[in-house]
């Protein structure tokens, strides 16, 4: 019988192979995907997030966990077809125009995905128009923008203006992140929140979904 506690430990310790093996076993035994995801996988990611917040784990540990989570989720996704009850929300994410830095943004994307969000990653150097088109096309709940440069963070405001102009400001919640941004800047440009690491980004996304 599949020991789902091992799955939990595999997610926490970032062990992709064992996470995948236990997930396969659990699927073969007919255990509900919702139980596997909600009671073990997401809890494992939450534990790792907590360790990160407390300084007991580092970014690569988060990524190892996210990778193990994704490996298991890829097996479970086909079984969830049409079932949206497991989706925490739909997120559009990208690095703003003029900025090629994407690794932090990808980390946030992975963590969000690992914690049950559906993520559409637009990549880097993304124009306001592309952000707006993606929000409409995917009927997104949250827009996440990233910038590493002090000279490109100002482009976040342009995107928010474009979202407002398209009449989407009340439909989508906007989060920003990246080394140069802070809470004050977030408020100045009219974003709904800011986070300075991937773990707090997940927490913020959950809060924004809850307040929707």
């Amino acid at each position, binding site marked *: 019988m599949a020991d789902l506690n091992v799955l939990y430990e595999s997610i926490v310790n970032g062990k992709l192979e064992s996470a995948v093996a236990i997930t396969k076993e659990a699927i073969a035994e007919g255990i509900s995907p919702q139980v596997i995801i909600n009671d073990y996988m997401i809890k494992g990611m939450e534990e790792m997030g907590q360790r990160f917040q407390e300084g007991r784990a*580092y*970014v*690569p*540990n988060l*990524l*190892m966990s*996210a*990778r193990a989570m994704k490996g298991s989720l890829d097996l479970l996704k086909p079984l969830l077809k049409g079932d949206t009850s497991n989706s925490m929300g739909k997120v559009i994410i990208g690095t703003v*125009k*003029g*900025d*090629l830095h994407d*690794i932090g943004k*990808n*980390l946030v994307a*992975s963590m969000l995905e690992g914690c049950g969000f559906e993520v559409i990653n637009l990549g880097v*150097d993304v124009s306001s128009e592309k952000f707006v088109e993606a929000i409409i096309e995917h009927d997104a709940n949250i827009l996440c923008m990233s910038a*590493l*440069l*002090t*000279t*490109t*963070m100002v482009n976040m405001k342009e995107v928010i203006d474009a979202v407002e102009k398209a009449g989407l400001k009340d439909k989508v919640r906007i989060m920003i992140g*990246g*080394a*140069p*941004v*802070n809470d004050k*800047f977030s408020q100045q440009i009219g974003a709904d929140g800011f986070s300075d690491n991937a773990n707090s980004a997940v927490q913020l996304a959950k809060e924004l979904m809850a307040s929707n």
Partner: protein
Amino acid sequence: MTTFQLQLSDLEINREDIYLNLGYGGAEPDEHINQLLESVIDKAYQICCPQVAYILCDGKLLSQSYIELNNISMKIGSIISGYLEQADQYAVFVATGGEEYDNYLQGIKLSGDIMTEFLADAVGSEIAEAAVRYVNVKIEIEALKMGYAITKPYSPGYCGWNVREQTQLFSLFPTQPCGIRLNDSCLMHPVKSVSGIVGMGSKVVETPYGCDACAMQTCYKRKHLA
């Protein structure tokens, strides 16, 4: 233009800087992550062909924010202007980890292996920084011959120097120096490339990247120092 085509072994790759890029602060990766990291570094030594180039320019500050180099004007912002105030001459440089490493990074990205991508990105950043340190040593040697000291290097995208100005900086070089090209947003390809300026002069002092002299409260370096 003076160009150097290098091997990675010509550069000093600092593992502590890589750990910092990976978010470790003063800590070190555990054994498993360190093994993965070392395999990325090994790969980099096999494939990476860094290049650096510089040119020496006559120039002058036109105002608090503008500089003219070889008759090309650039808006570098007041912070960098302040640091270059005492310069008698300037060196403009480019440094890159090269196309080969960029292709390696792209391949990892396409594979969806975010862990290796993260490690390879951090290693690539250190390669680019090591290439900048290399070219700065060469620039300093030129400066010493003239009896000059040098400033720290300053790059578009930082300290208020907009990346859009990179077009002007690149116009000082022959087309695609070290194979580096700019896209529509004035960003460099290969991605792990750095451009910048160094001031040279008898009165210049190498001022550390300090926050006291800079009014940019949102600068990420300030945030990390806080």
